């Protein structure tokens, strides 16, 4: 028996020792926003398949994790749904922003509420708890069930910035992820929340705002105001593989294929541009 233990011990130590000497190939880590993960992952997979021996490791963990890890120098790229300036505790000046896509956010409701349009001011009142029944704004007699994203998440921030004018919404149920929000809205009578365009499915009712439909064209012209950038941050100017990969993400290959396929909008197609404070600069 004893011999076996020793063998196992030796085996483990050997494994660990040899492990330290491994050449990990050329690889970089992109960590952060879980909403961006499919996009970066798809880009990374395609990049690796075209460049053998170069690997892009993509991880979720949230925008906050992405920004703090890239600032700490633990990873090469930090993915974020927010401008670094919008997060407290981040020295935005040290980070370089690479906007890789635009994503629109749309309010969604349960199919039973009997509405497909809502005015911006009503929407604000709904999320601030001033309107509590759908019948008050022309829907069915159903109490409104608010479902928010986790505070600090990109979607929540974008929604509060453009719908609630930066004020906070009423304390309510919170969910961490888009998939959960969609599932809950689709099964809970009277539920309302908000998701990225690409997550809208048959199961939920997207709401037009002041009769403006949530379409890509309306976002491009800024008629639909609830949209935000998807950022990939680097600490200082990118170098080496990081730079090559970021260039690739902004190349026609990705922007014209993967980006629209995943329901994002290419940055180059936007007719307007916003700065970190939400002001139009173009």
């Amino acid at each position, binding site marked *: *028996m*004893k011999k076996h*233990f020793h063998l*196992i*011990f030796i*085996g*483990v130590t050997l*494994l660990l020792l*040899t*492990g330290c000497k*491994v*050449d*990990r*190939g050329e*690889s970089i*880590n992109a960590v952060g926003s*879980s*909403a961006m*993960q*499919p996009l970066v*992952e*798809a880009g990374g*997979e395609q990049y*690796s398949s075209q460049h053998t021996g170069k*690997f892009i*490791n*993509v*991880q*979720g*963990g949230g925008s906050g994790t992405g920004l703090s*890890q890239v600032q*700490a120098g*633990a990873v090469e790229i930090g993915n974020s749904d927010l401008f670094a300036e919008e997060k407290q505790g981040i020295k935005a000046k040290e980070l370089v922003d690479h906007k890789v896509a635009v994503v629109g956010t749309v309010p969604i409701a349960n199919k039973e509420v009997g509405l497909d349009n809502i005015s911006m001011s009503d929407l604000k009142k709904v999320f601030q708890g001033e309107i509590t029944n759908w019948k008050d704004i022309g829907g069915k007699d159903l109490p409104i069930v608010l479902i928010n994203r986790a505070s600090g998440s990109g979607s929540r921030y974008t929604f509060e910035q453009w719908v609630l004018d930066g004020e906070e919404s009423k304390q309510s149920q919170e969910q*961490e*992820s*888009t*998939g*959960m929000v969609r*599932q809950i809205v689709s099964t809970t009578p009277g539920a309302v929340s908000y998701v990225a365009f*690409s*997550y809208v499915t048959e199961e939920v009712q997207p709401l037009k705002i002041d009769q403006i439909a949530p379409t890509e064209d309306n976002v491009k012209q800024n008629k639909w105001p609830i949209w935000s950038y998807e950022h990939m941050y680097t600490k200082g100017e990118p170098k080496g593989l990081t730079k090559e990969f970021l260039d690739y993400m902004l190349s026609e290959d990705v922007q014209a294929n993967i980006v629209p*396929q*995943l*329901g994002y909008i290419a940055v180059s197609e936007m007719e307007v541009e916003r700065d970190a404070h939400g002001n139009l600069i173009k």
Partner: protein
Amino acid sequence: MTPKKADRLATGILYGIAGIIVVILASLLLYILAQGLPHVSFKFLTTPSKSFQAGGGIGIQLFNSFYLLFITMLVSIPISLGAGIYLSEYAPNNWVTGLIRTAIEILSSLPSVVVGLFGFLLFVVKAQLGFSIISGALALTFFNLPLLTRNVEESLKAVHFTQREAGLALGLSRWETVTHVIIPEALPGILTGVILGAGRIFGEAAALIYTAGQSAPALDFTNWNPLSISSPLNIFRQAETLAVHIWKINSEGNMPDGPTVSAGASAVLILAVLLFNFLARFLGKRIHKKMTSA
């Protein structure tokens, strides 16, 4: 009410309770299997997953789950064996031992999120292991250690003291008695514990999200050099497991057939755990038979 009637009534109620528990589990299992099994096919089990198109499988995740389990066991079994031996054979009965036991209990009741984040900061960031199988395995070891240690200790303690006395009387040292007499005798118990622990590890998600990572890069199953990055055996590659995959599909998944993939993956996960359970019972009985008849 006469005592006789009370006795009958109580027996009836107890049968009822036992029945309810069996019904709860049976309906849980049937629900998961009925939802998932129709989507499970050989192709589903072997093809890689897709992040935003339909028709992805769970091949790599399945392999990752087993491989991660293997590595975790490789690290945690020797440590918990040692710790269990110490606690059952050497530990003096004083406050230090009490403190050690409390520490182990606490480790076992730690929320897995906390362990995951601790692993993230320590292994992924500080030790620069990155999101990798080894980071995940070390984090899972934290979970496994208290369970296994307690199991080893209990199995060893269950061995009758006359066995120890017999060993010592033959002139064996305490250590020799443990390794040559006690452990073989306690082996069925230890093994059962190990396999049941394996089931728990197999389904763990929260601790792995931040350590082993959430993506499963393509693997080259013809490359068995453990040092190459595309080899399945490399312990420094990131590895999404089955449980993490289910969690991811349901949280941020954007594939059109997400619900079916998740149902199928859940069914596979449950089947694997079932398998572990049967294996534990079967092997436990088998070894016990062999040991006692020999």
